[in-house]
């Protein structure tokens, strides 16, 4: 399959902060990819590199066979503005015309607005739109130039259910017609609803790159913590680490793990079971090989 966007060994520093650490990934034609990770994980930096807003400190970023810094290359992409920054004084139709003017192929204005449930608002000033309407307009703008790849940064954060559904429908219809989409979110739910492939980003690295189903299984893990001198071989341990005399075990099936632990007769104390955060789960899994218990 054609690779539309590619990062090769990309690192990005902001002063002392390493926002991306040797990230490599391919986005292929027709994919709907979700970038998942907590705030500050490096998702936005990665998107900013792909759309040409920032340059990598080291490594290379390729977009549609060229450099994202090249305006001609960017004719093939669509990006969502933050809806808080939309120019208040302009009307909905005017801003669509303005953005469209930059592209050789332009989506039909009426059809585009209808796809995002904005058809009745063409003449409305942006200052008079609700938060949900602004967000939908912001996402619609990404599709104004009939792009090949669309980058959506947190498209539905803070939206009500109805607005979210309208937005998801718009994104899906683009994908069904062969469009490629990269979206970021810190909600697995949003990524699940749209994407097939999930890339989990944390501490500037790609922690996992897999199908939604595989990732969801990992996210369902629990962290079992206890104090014990030595542990026998236990079933279903995905990852483990030891700190200050406590052992933390990651597992998809905490009940079975505890049953086996008790059966083994190993003395332990201070048993604690809690859900893992997404980041924790992936960090633990990626450091599994080096962990020493």
């Amino acid at each position, binding site marked *: 399959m054609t690779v539309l966007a590619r990062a090769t060994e990309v690192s990005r520093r902001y002063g002392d902060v390493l926002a991306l650490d040797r990230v490599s990934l391919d986005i292929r034609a027709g994919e709907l990819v979700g970038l998942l990770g907590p705030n500050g994980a490096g998702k936005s930096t990665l998107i900013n590199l792909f*759309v*040409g*807003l*920032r*340059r990598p400190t080291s490594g290379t970023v390729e977009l549609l066979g060229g450099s994202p810094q090249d*305006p*001609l*290359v*960017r*004719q093939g*992409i669509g*990006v*969502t*503005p*933050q809806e*808080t*920054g*939309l*120019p*208040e*004084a*302009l009307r909905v139709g*005017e801003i669509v*015309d*303005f*953005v469209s*003017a*930059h*592209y050789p192929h332009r989506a039909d204005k009426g059809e585009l607005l209808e796809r995002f449930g904005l058809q009745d608002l063409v003449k409305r*000033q942006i200052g008079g739109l609700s938060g949900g309407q602004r967000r939908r307009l912001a996402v619609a703008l990404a599709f104004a*130039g009939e792009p090949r790849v669309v980058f959506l940064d947190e498209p539905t954060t803070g939206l009500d259910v109805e607005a979210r559904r309208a937005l998801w429908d718009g994104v899906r219809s683009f994908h069904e017609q062969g469009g490629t989409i990269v979206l970021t979110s810190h909600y697995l739910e949003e990524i699940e609803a749209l994407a097939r492939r999930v890339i989990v980003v944390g501490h500037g690295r790609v922690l996992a790159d897999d199908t939604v189903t595989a990732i969801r299984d990992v996210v369902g893990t629990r962290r079992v913590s206890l104090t014990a001198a030595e542990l026998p071989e236990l079933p279903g341990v995905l990852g483990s680490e030891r700190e200050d005399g406590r052992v933390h075990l990651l597992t998809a099936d905490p009940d079975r793990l505890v049953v086996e632990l008790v059966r083994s007769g190993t003395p332990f104390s201070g048993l604690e079971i809690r859900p893992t955060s997404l980041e924790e789960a992936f960090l633990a899994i990626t450091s599994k090989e080096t962990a020493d218990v």
Partner: protein
Amino acid sequence: MSSLVLAHTRYQLLEQIRVPLGLVASAFFPAASMLAFVVPFGGDDPVGATRATGSMMMIGAMSAAVMGLSISVAQDREQPWNPYLRTLPAGPFPRFAGRILTTMAVMLAATVPVLVIAALLTKASVTAPRLALGLAALLAGALPFMLIGLFLGFLLPSKAAIGVSQVVFFPIAIVGGLFMPPQFMPEFLQALSPYVPSRGAAELVWSAATGSTPNITGIVMLVVWTVAAALAAAWAYRRDEGRRFS
């Protein structure tokens, strides 16, 4: 390419018209000064009134350039819309050209009330070709001020730009002889006057409108200021680019 310049100009003009703060500020102040000073104190002298009208037009143009441009550039830099625009397939030129054309449109619009007051309430007179020449001189003379506006806009946060641009605007306008003809100013200001860019700009307009011989030092200094302001604006632009988009 030119269609993109058009799109950016149209967009910025719409913003100017819908939120006409900059337009009103640039048009109101010279018109008010015209009514308060020129009409009662100099309206009966045809040449003096014509020169004073030219000065007031230059004040409006300076205000649009130094204050209007610096504040709008500084505010735009703070909006998340600004990085979005950079993801669109265009280089910096169309937006930049749109800014300059929009500022010029505001400058020309700001001359309308001054010209109407001059025609109705003073003995100022000008032929059509000299009026056209005067307006061209106005735009040419405003160039260093647009560059100063860009410099301040790219250098300062918007709140600072509002204050600093006013602090820059008034002394330069006064020393340049826009509020009071240079020959009526104290001697040390008369000596200093040709070295500020507003004097050279005003000389261009006066000369275009009345056929007077311009002050040569003033014109040379206008060119010097234009080059210096262009370098400063380019430096501030690169610095801002480097900070936000490298």
